[in-house]
């Protein structure tokens, strides 16, 4: 572990904490513009977080310690994920601690605690949200892993740093397996981040929501942590997608010139990605909950297809 690595790790940490709410704000801005509304400023998520942190936390009478611990666990899982995914550079001392499979495991751990916390107070909406979240999760997780497997077969490694190194050094051709995997990954990210068409991040119609139903009882600092964790999750997924499919611009080890350009490149990529996400959310409508398994099963099949194409045809 060298000084440079530690610095890069800390930069990645700070970048995640700052950029994640900004990304959410950016997506919301674009969504408002695309829907002919006046947009809130890009810093709106930060204002929300600050407001929530100042408010007192109202807890239900029956809430157990699980309810208070869960926000910290979820936040910790998502931030850890952001520190493992190569965002700015692949020279991260923490990266060997978790490869892509462990990354999926971390997301799943966060989901487990979030669902358990939602069941804790014992309201009808909480358990409903928990059940739906687990439904989305058990289909999205395998699909995500199939995408990861495809990428790791191409680069002979499940370590994200090695995947980025291999993928960014190959000549610029579109591999069919990666194309399938890319579509699958997009579908999974929409589902995992509670986006339209699977869930609606802006909804207040109780029966149509998943993520918001789980947070219904939360308030004050606990809600702030959960919201921050949600934007970190979106950031981590976006960066994982960029690392898998558009790895150009992420600095390799000891490449200082690239490191200087890494942040602007990342911001530019995220800006484009956020605009596309807002576009998708504007064009599509939310699905019925029992269409979601079909949507995710499609993603899973595409992932398996990507893996088969890679293994059988080597393409």
């Amino acid at each position, binding site marked *: 572990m060298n000084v440079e690595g530690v610095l890069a790790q800390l930069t990645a940490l700070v970048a995640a904490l700052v950029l994640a709410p900004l990304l959410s704000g950016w997506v919301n801005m674009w969504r408002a513009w695309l829907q002919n509304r006046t947009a809130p400023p890009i810093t709106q998520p930060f204002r929300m977080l600050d407001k929530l942190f100042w408010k007192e936390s109202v807890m239900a009478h029956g809430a157990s310690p699980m309810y208070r611990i869960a926000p910290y666990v979820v936040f910790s899982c998502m931030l850890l994920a952001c520190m493992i995914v190569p965002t700015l550079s692949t020279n991260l001392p923490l990266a060997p601690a978790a490869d892509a499979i462990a990354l999926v495991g971390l997301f799943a751990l966060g989901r487990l605690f979030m669902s*358990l916390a939602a069941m804790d107070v014992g309201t009808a909406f909480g358990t409903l949200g928990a059940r739906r979240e687990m439904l989305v999760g058990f289909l999205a997780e395998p699909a995500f892993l199939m995408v990861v497997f495809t990428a790791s077969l191409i680069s002979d490694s499940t370590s994200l740093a090695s995947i980025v190194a291999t993928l960014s050094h190959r000549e610029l051709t579109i591999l069919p397996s990666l194309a399938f995997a890319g579509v699958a990954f997009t579908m999974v990210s929409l589902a995992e981040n509670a986006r339209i068409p699977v869930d609606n991040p802006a909804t207040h119609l109780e029966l149509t929501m998943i993520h918001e139903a789980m947070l219904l009882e939360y308030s004050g600092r606990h809600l702030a942590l959960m919201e921050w964790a949600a934007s970190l999750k979106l950031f981590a997924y976006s960066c994982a997608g960029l690392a898998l499919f558009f790895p150009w611009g992420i600095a390799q080890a000891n490449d200082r010139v690239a490191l200087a350009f890494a942040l602007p490149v990342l911001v530019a990529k995220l800006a484009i990605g956020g605009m596309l996400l807002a576009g998708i959310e504007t064009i599509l409508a939310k699905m019925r909950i029992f269409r979601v398994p079909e949507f995710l099963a499609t993603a899973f099949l595409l992932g398996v297809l990507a893996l088969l194409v890679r293994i059988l045809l080597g393409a």
Partner: protein
Amino acid sequence: MNALTALDGALTVVAAWLALGLAGLVAPRSFRFVAHVLFPLSALLSLALAALGLAALPGAAHAMVLPIGLPGLPFHLRLDALSAFFLVVLGLASAGITIFAAGYFRSGEGTAPGVMGLEYHVFLAAMAMVMLADDAYAFMVCWELMALSSFLLVTTNHRIPEIQRAGFLYLLVAHIGAIAILLCFGVLQADTGDYTFANMRAQHLGTFRASAGFLLALFGFGAKAGILPLHVWLPEAHPAAPSPVSALMSGVMLKTAVYGMARVTFDLLGTPLWWWGVIALAVGLATALFGVVFAAAQVDMKRLLAYSSIENIGLVVIAFGLAIVFTAYRMLPLAALAMTAMLYHCANHAVFKSLLFLGTGSVLHATQERNLGKLGGLMRFMPWVAVTSLVGVVAAAGLPPSNGFVSEWLLLQGFLFTGALPNPYLRMLVPVFAAGVVLVAALAGYVMVKFFGVIFLGRPREEKLAQAKDAGMLERLGLAWLTAFCVLLGLFPVEVMEVIDPIPALLLGRGLVQGGHIGGTFLLAPVSAERASYSPIAILVVGLAIAGLAFLLVRRVYHGRVRRAAPWDCGYPWQTARMQDTAEGFGQPIRQIFEPLYRMKRELPTAFDAAPRYRVTVEDPMWAWIYLRIAAATEAVSRRVGMLQRGRIAIYLLYSFLTLVALLFLTQA
């Protein structure tokens, strides 16, 4: 010398267990003496066995002949790395289970405590002897002893008809399996008449005989392990048995079957054929998927865990199949990886499933309820059981940094190497299996959220639950012991794999550690650091640091004020505990998605019912698809045979006469 003393030591432990069991007969009605004197002593013996096994693991194999049994048929015993590993698993898990049992068994439940203590210790001793047996005779005697003693334990509350039925089913399947194992040994000895394992090892069987031996072993041991069509006894026997017995059966006894499969396939049969691996993979995947899908639909907490055990055995069999495939193509480092994953998962499952079963035992004692729909909110009343179960749940869901994740990770790493297989069909099939494994792992998370959430979280669904008492001291000790191993096995994968390594070295001729590095103390990298690495300690430490810092910073920069109020629930004030999801409700999405798999009966009310009732029952389809058909066929055949039995002596004399004539005719011809 060292390993020889280990074998002697293991035998001493077995003898001491039997002595403890017999000592219980001195005062069979004194539950105090049995529970508070004999069981803690027995737990110490378990510890000794685990230590002996650990000492014997790296050493050379040692054998001895014990002159018991029939004249001319002594017990051949042998302690090698494979036996030693399973002895360690037995010792570690049973130490926690036994100390829990010391606090668990109450007077006035079924069989007298002294007699039950005898059954329990015979069960433990028989399992240890199964691992040590080195000839078919000793193996079968101990195997049957294990089946019988566990049957008696399952039927501890033998006055209840359901429990009698469950016990009978268990005994039946156990014996069908035993017949297959016996036939398997018959095939393996290759007409030499010498049933020692040493002789079987020396035989070079042809493809047909070897395959027959393998399939018989898979069937026979599969009946004990609970692979797909033979799993039916598990969901019946586990709810019937007292919880420590369920824990012992699910955590340890299922592993004796895995031990048997590994012993026969890798040790006695020599080099396996590739398609055996495909069969094991297919059976394993079917078992795992079936188990987890049915676990999601269960409403009885012990049945849910029983189906989850079926799922985990499926995962073990998948790793077993992968190891066979790699061995068949002489890709030994990868075979070692798959075998390590298999053994690792055995140890993990032994620990976390025992833990969860014991947790359900405490819940059962505190509430008298097994039905998930009548539990809820127990985290507040039983914090010890809840927190230890939470660790078990994270492990069973296969999430980092627990132990369950490590073995699944190793298994998935094994799958990622299948691109190098020379057989194109296999290359095509294996990713499909990998996809199935991931689906199973993700569904396990669903099941575990249901298990923990419905029992421990939410509001109590019954009034009486508020009086639930947490587990007693001895029970807590048992739970804490198993929890500690869930954590340790998860945090120190490299050390655990170094312990396991002599087994692939023995069976495949090449271990994982000796062929290269598997990382350092804190970093697991089974192939190379560039290829894949995982460090649970780093994840845990950094994760805890982030959570702790976030906690402190929020309090320092902002505040830590909390106000208690009624739940919000979108402003709906009339909610009751009954409005929470029931167990059926939580499983409903899975039931809907996998509907063709279940045999579901729904009673739906119409809009005009004065007293609307909703009822749904889910049945195991294997009953209707296989077992009831076999039963019907058997009945039809026996009815035909019954036509011979006329009950008149003249007709029976006629039969004898006709037989005689026929035989005379045959000898003349």
